[in-house]
């Protein structure tokens, strides 16, 4: 189980080494047995998984292709709707919520033969950088159990690192895929904004939310993205742009590729993280890439910009959790107004409340221009920084996080310090460009460090070509 890739599953199925049903049973029992170590899964879906596996076996028996993800065990972050299965958003408010329909990404995965085996833990409503904001307990990093797996998609990163799923889905608003991928030593991809439909992704900050894949190598991540990508009439923000063959882009040849190193990112990087990232730059140079320093001058303002925009959008998106339609309901409310206030006060966790408050404040009368509108203008400047850089370079490389996985509890009482851990991932999210984390070595304590690769809008092919070549060199 722990060694499987999408291609090894395919080879095993086609050579009759195992059936999809056998692999699914094995994956489920292994994942359930391992889960107490990390708390990465919140629920398992054996019935749905076995039904999907039976369809794959039937395809193979009929001489048909099993599909791009045929028989592959997939785990899904619990903010993505899966019909008939619990989708809790790791919130007490939704602990009994059963999704009435499937997200488009889920429909596409199953149509390609993928087997959804369970739902993964995360920060409540995807708000956090350590997975400690889950109402159902934190996730432990499988690489070092006393440390966080990163967040908010901590569970989805942990299951792939632990080998209890082959690939998984996360969501990324400001780094929630890349940062946990780097902390757990795997590949995590945030595609171009609009590349993957968000229909059925529980909204946190709509102008920033993405669905993206986790995998143990770039090829698997690219395959999963390709299955999910493309226009969806149910999501008006999904892009019309054609979906290329990512596999065809991974030629192994990166000679002459122009790569930018943003000086603003490297001035904060210290210690072993900086050493490993700098070593990666030398490796890229040895592979034939042309490296040059570039400037993204508004980088220092990204954190503030992001936390204004994302909390503003969150305060609006989370207004729907009012105790009327699909959440638990406070039992002590005589009036409708009290019902809303008590349900939300009792149901939301501390970080979600903090963000709703901040977002409501920055949108409120007298502060809208000073905070929200100002942040939207700075967001434009940050995007222009990238657009300008991509007229000179094909890709940008940088650290993912200023430090490797930290200890559980280390930052939990200091929201600003927690927010600052997103410093390198937030800029790409604000611009809506594709970015990913790929492993670039371990610290002396054995903690993984990720290298971030960023490309221009819809530049996934270049990003995967570089990541794949880097991984195999």
């Amino acid at each position, binding site marked *: 189980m722990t060694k499987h890739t999408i291609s090894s599953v395919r080879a095993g199925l086609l050579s009759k080494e195992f059936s999809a049903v056998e692999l699914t049973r094995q994956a489920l029992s292994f994942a359930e047995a391992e889960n107490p170590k990390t708390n990465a899964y919140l629920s398992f879906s054996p019935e749905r998984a076995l039904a999907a596996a039976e369809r794959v076996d039937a395809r193979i028996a009929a001489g048909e292709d099993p599909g791009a993800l045929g028989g592959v065990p997939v785990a899904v972050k619990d903010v993505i709707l899966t019909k008939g299965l619990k989708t809790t958003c790791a919130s007490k408010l939704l602990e009994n*919520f059963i999704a*009435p*329909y499937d997200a488009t990404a889920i429909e596409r995965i199953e149509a390609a033969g993928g087997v959804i085996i369970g739902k993964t833990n995360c920060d409540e409503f995807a708000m956090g950088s350590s997975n400690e904001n889950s109402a159902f307990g934190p996730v432990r990093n499988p690489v070092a159990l006393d440390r966080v797996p990163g967040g908010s998609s901590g569970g989805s990163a942990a299951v792939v690192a632990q080998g209890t799923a082959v690939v998984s889905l996360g969501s990324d608003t400001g780094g929630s895929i890349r940062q946990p991928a780097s902390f757990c030593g795997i590949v995590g991809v945030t595609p*171009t*904004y*609009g590349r993957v439909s968000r229909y059925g992704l529980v909204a946190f900050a709509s*102008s920033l939310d993405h669905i993206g894949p986790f995998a143990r190598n770039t090829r698997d991540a690219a395959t999963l993205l390709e299955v999910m990508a493309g226009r969806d009439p149910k999501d*008006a*923000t999904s*892009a019309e*742009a054609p979906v290329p063959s990512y596999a065809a882009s991974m030629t192994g040849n990166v000679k002459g590729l122009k790569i930018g190193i943003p000086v603003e990112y490297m001035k904060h990087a210290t210690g072993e993280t900086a050493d490993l990232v700098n070593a990666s730059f030398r490796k890229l140079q040895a592979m034939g890439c042309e490296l040059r320093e570039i400037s993204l001058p*508004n980088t*220092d*303002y990204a954190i*503030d*910009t992001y*936390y*204004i925009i994302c909390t503003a959008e969150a305060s609006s998106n989370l*207004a729907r959790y009012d*105790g*009327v*339609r*699909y*959440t*638990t*309901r406070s039992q002590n*409310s*005589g*009036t*409708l*107004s009290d*019902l*809303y*206030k*008590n349900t*939300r006060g*009792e149901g*939301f966790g501390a970080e979600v*409340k*903090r963000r*709703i*408050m*901040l977002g*409501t*404040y920055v949108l*409120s009368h007298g502060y809208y221009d*000073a*905070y929200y509108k*100002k*942040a*939207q*203008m*700075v967001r*434009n*400047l940050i*995007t222009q920084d990238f657009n300008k850089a991509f007229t000179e370079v094909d890709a940008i490389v940088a650290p993912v996080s200023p430090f490797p996985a930290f200890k559980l509890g280390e930052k939990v009482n200091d*929201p*600003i310090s927690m927010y600052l851990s997103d410093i390198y991932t937030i800029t790409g999210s604000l*611009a*809506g460009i594709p970015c990913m984390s790929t492993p670039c070595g371990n610290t002396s304590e054995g903690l993984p460090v990720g290298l971030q690769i960023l490309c221009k809008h819809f530049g996934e092919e270049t990003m995967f070509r570089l990541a794949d070549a880097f991984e195999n060199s």
Partner: protein
Amino acid sequence: MKLTEKEVRHVANLANLNLTEEEVAKMLVDLDGILEHMDRLKEINTDGVAPMSQVLFDAGDTASLRADVPMPSLPNADALLNAPQPGQGYFKVPKVIERS
């Protein structure tokens, strides 16, 4: 301090969020620190810069619109499955209008 306790209570009310006394006190300290950090944005000159409310990429003007064709919506029974208090095909809430 940028914020007052009164403002925290006002914002909580706008957000329909009941906070305990301890939460109000903690929120005051946390939000104050975060807002002070955010004030750094004032350093940047944004004269003439358009606010960016959505990620933009090259596409036709109506590319995001689909044909206006009626499609089945979520059946009533399915929509009520997660309701804390369904009844008669509706969501029940405490009475908001008194009979005179």
